[in-house]
Structure formats: C-alpha cells, structure tokens
C-alpha cells in the first residue's frame, strides 16, 4: 500500500471527535477522493497524511514510513492556492527545487516545463495578484508537481472556482495525472467531481467522522461525464448521502 491508514482517531482539545477509528489503504497510482459533508473529518484526514495535524491514536504510513511531520514527499494543493505573493508564477513553481539547492538555470528550466504543462507559459513573470483564481490554482498544481512528490494531496482545490473554470481544471488535472499516474488523495464535497476524477470514492459521514462506504468507479476515463454509469453512480452516492443515519442528538 502506498498510503496505509490504521485505526486513526482524532480528538481535538475541545473534546470534539473529528475521526473515529478510520482505516483505509490507498494503492500506488490510484486517484482517490475523500467525499462527505462538512465536519466529516475528510480535511482532517488529509492534513494528517500531510503531517499538519497530529493524531490521537492509530497510525498513518506513506511508503511504509510513519508520518509524524510535513515533508516534501507529500505535495499539497490548497483551496486558497497558498502561492507566495512575492514570487512570480515561475519562481513559485521553482520554490521546492530552490529548497533542494538545484542550480538556478536547471530549476528555472524545470519550472518552465511545469508552467508549460498547465498552459501558462505566457504568464511566467506575473505575480499571483495578477492572476485569476483558475490560473493561480494551475500554478499551485504545477508547483506541487515540480517538487516531484511521492503522493499528491489536494484539499478542495477547485472549491473556490466558478463552475466553468472548475470543470476545465478537472479536465486538465486528469490529463496531467494520466501522464504519470501519481497517487492522488483529493478532498471534495462535490459528488460529480469525485466520480469524474477518481478510481475510488471514499464516502465519509460525520458525528463523529468515519468512512461510510467506498465506491469503485469502474468507468472509462474518456468521456466519463457522458456515460450512463457516471449519472447512475452519482445518483447512488447522492441517495446514500441523503439518508443520514439517525443518531440521537
């Protein structure tokens, strides 16, 4: 398993149980989505894989090593882009390589390649404040990839974008992903986004956060949105999300 999550429980200081004995194995090269309503702990789980959030009990392993702090092997794309505003688009992408002391010419060369990959070659010297939301997120994706992480973690990356830009970026992300099939963990609350992008959709529930069901998406990658199976699976997941288990309040 690329990512192995065993019996993870997270209790915050205020006593809120964010995750209750969650276990999940993620195979190398799969695109997996964590889907669920707010408060189901999907972001907490992702942040735990990234090493930003500590666990109360249980174990998270990436590439067989237990996660206890953030690291460059787990690239992250944030909903709020998190680009460094004082660096140009190109310099943002080269940031990880700069930390590794890759010579300047080489890292700019590499950064250009990734900027090109997300279709922004014409905007290399622009600062983030000069870019649209969709462009910013493209730069953020390129930045994460340029650092050659072992897994790519995405925390509602398209949540702040308008519907049209969102679909465009989903298409572009898949196109890039299919080139090297990196392991991706993608957090979203959009059912169609999860079904469109993923090999597997992990549906989570809240109070406390737990895994309700895992759906294997056995649909063709090309033209997936138009297939009957896409609509059917989307409906199934929606139906399941609606029947909230009755828990005594």
């Amino acid at each position, binding site marked *: 398993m690329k990512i192995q999550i065993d019996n993870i429980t997270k209790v915050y200081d205020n006593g809120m149980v964010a995750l209750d004995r969650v276990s999940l194995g993620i195979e190398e090269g799969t695109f997996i989505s964590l889907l669920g309503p707010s408060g189901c702990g999907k972001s907490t789980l992702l942040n735990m894989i990234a090493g*930003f959030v500590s666990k109360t009990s249980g174990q998270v392993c990436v590439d067989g090593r237990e996660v206890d702090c953030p690291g*460059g092997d787990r*690239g992250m794309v944030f909903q709020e882009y*998190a*680009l460094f505003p004082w660096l140009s688009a190109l310099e943002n992408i080269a940031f990880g390589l*700069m*930390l590794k002391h890759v010579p300047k010419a080489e890292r700019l060369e590499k950064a250009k390649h990734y900027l090109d990959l997300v279709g922004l070659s014409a905007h290399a010297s622009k600062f983030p404040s000069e870019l649209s939301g969709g462009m910013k997120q493209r730069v953020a994706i390129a930045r994460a990839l340029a650092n050659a992480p072992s897994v790519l973690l995405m925390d509602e990356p398209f949540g702040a974008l308008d519907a049209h830009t969102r679909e465009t970026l989903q298409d572009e992300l898949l196109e890039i992903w299919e080139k090297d099939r990196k392991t991706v963990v993608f957090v979203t609350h959009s059912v169609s986004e999860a079904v469109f992008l993923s090999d597997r959709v992990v549906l989570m529930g809240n109070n406390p956060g737990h895994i309700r069901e895992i759906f294997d998406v056995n649909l063709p990658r090309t033209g997936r949105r138009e297939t009957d199976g896409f609509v059917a699976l989307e409906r199934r997941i929606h139906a399941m999300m609606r029947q909230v288990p009755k828990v005594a309040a």
Partner: protein
Amino acid sequence: MSDIMQIDAAMIARTASVQKRNSDRLHACLRPLSVFLFFFAWFLATWLNNHVMRMYNPILIPTPLQVLQAGIESWKSGDLIVDIAASMYRVVVGFAVAAIAGVGLGVLLSRSRLSESLLEPVIEMFRPVPSLAFLPLLVLWFGIGETSKVVFIAYATFFPVFTATRLGMRQIDGVLIRAAQSMGASRSDIFRHVELPAASPSILSGLRMGFGMAFFVIVAAEYIAAESGLGFMINNSRTYFDVPRMLLGAIIIGIIGFLINIVLGKLERRVLRWHPNSRGK
C-alpha cells in the same frame, strides 16, 4: 448595425481616455501651483503689511525674500551645510541602530517564546515613556556630544520599527508556511523564504515611520543639547531674534523630509513590486 455599434463603443472609449488624460494633465499642473500660491500669499501678506497697512510687527513674519537671503548667506558662510550634515548624521546613525535592534528583536521575539516572555514586558514597560523624558538624562550620561543624540534617536525610533516587525511576523498566513513545509522546507528555510518576505511590507512601513520619527525628534534634541544641527540653528537664531533664519531652518527640514520620503517611497515600491497596493503608482 453591429459595426456601427462597435465604432461607437471605440469612439466612446477613446473620448473617455482622452478626457481622462486631459484631466490627469490638469491635476498634474494644479499640484505645484498649490505650493506656488502659498508662497505668493505669504509674499502678498508681508508686502501689504510692510507697504500698505501695518497689521503686525514686520520682524515677526519676514518676507519670503528675507528667508531666501538668510539661506544664501548661511550657505555662503558654510554654516548651513554644517548644520544639515550634523542633523543628518545623527538621524542616519541613530536610525540605523534602531532599525537593526527593532527588526532584530521583533524577529527574535516572534520566533522564540522564551525571549518573548523574558524581553517583551521590559520593552513594553519603556514604550509609554516618551523619548524626550530621557533627553536630559542622556545628556547627563553621554554629554552633549554625538552619543547622546544618537542614543536618543535610536530610542525614539526603535518602537515603531519593533512594533511593525512584530505585527508583520504575526500576520503571516499559516497556509503559506504549510505550503512551504509540504515542499520540504526546514525551519530556517521557512524563516528565510516565507516569514521574512511575508513580513517585509510591514517591516518596511515600520522603517519608514521610524525614519520620519527620527527626523521629528532630532530637532527637539538639538534645541536642548547641541552646538550644531538644524534644531540648534533654529534655537540659536531665536536668541538673536533672527526670524528669517528660524523660518529657514523649518523650511530646510521640510524640504529634506519631503525628499527623503520620495526616495523611501520609490525604494519601497521597488522592493514590494509584487504587492497589489504598490502597482500602478
């Protein structure tokens, strides 16, 4: 039909941009005119007082020409340049000390809780004490030489620099730090490549405020304990009732402050090229 509409739109856009440009040009002329009008009103008032109707003792408000004359005289005698140099030296050295101490301590206290607990209460204890309150003591300790003025300026300037640095370090968006961590940044990487640049707008505005403050307080220091400098020049002229020279001192300080502000503003915009607020100005 649509062609016509397009032409119309283009014409309207062009007319609007021409109007905008004309109005920009007009306002670019109005600004220096406002300063000119002030000097003209000053000239007119003193001239009327001296030649038409006496309203006050003419010694109290000299004419602009008298001030200019005083300027030329003290320039020729070499006094003026000595006084300017003396004040500038004190400001620059005192400010440099404060800038290093203010940024250094501001960063240190933001990065280490131990130093924060140990040092912040003391610093905050001194903050409400105005620098002028220490001036007589400083003269007692360091004499009326340069040291007392440099220390005085450093003390006065330290607080705005320190506070702005603290604020800048505190307001850093946590997601930027997490982004750097997810690319393998160490603690020192984060400090160098995230925290310092992220805090730089606040630090720079603190430095600008500090420099303004240094300029502000040096005059007061030179009233009390100095044998050169622009403050000394003003106060010394008072003993001789040389009002043109007193006004000259004030005007020189204004001009120097104005020029320095322009240079610092340009510098700041250059360094903060990326900042949305600094573009297009």
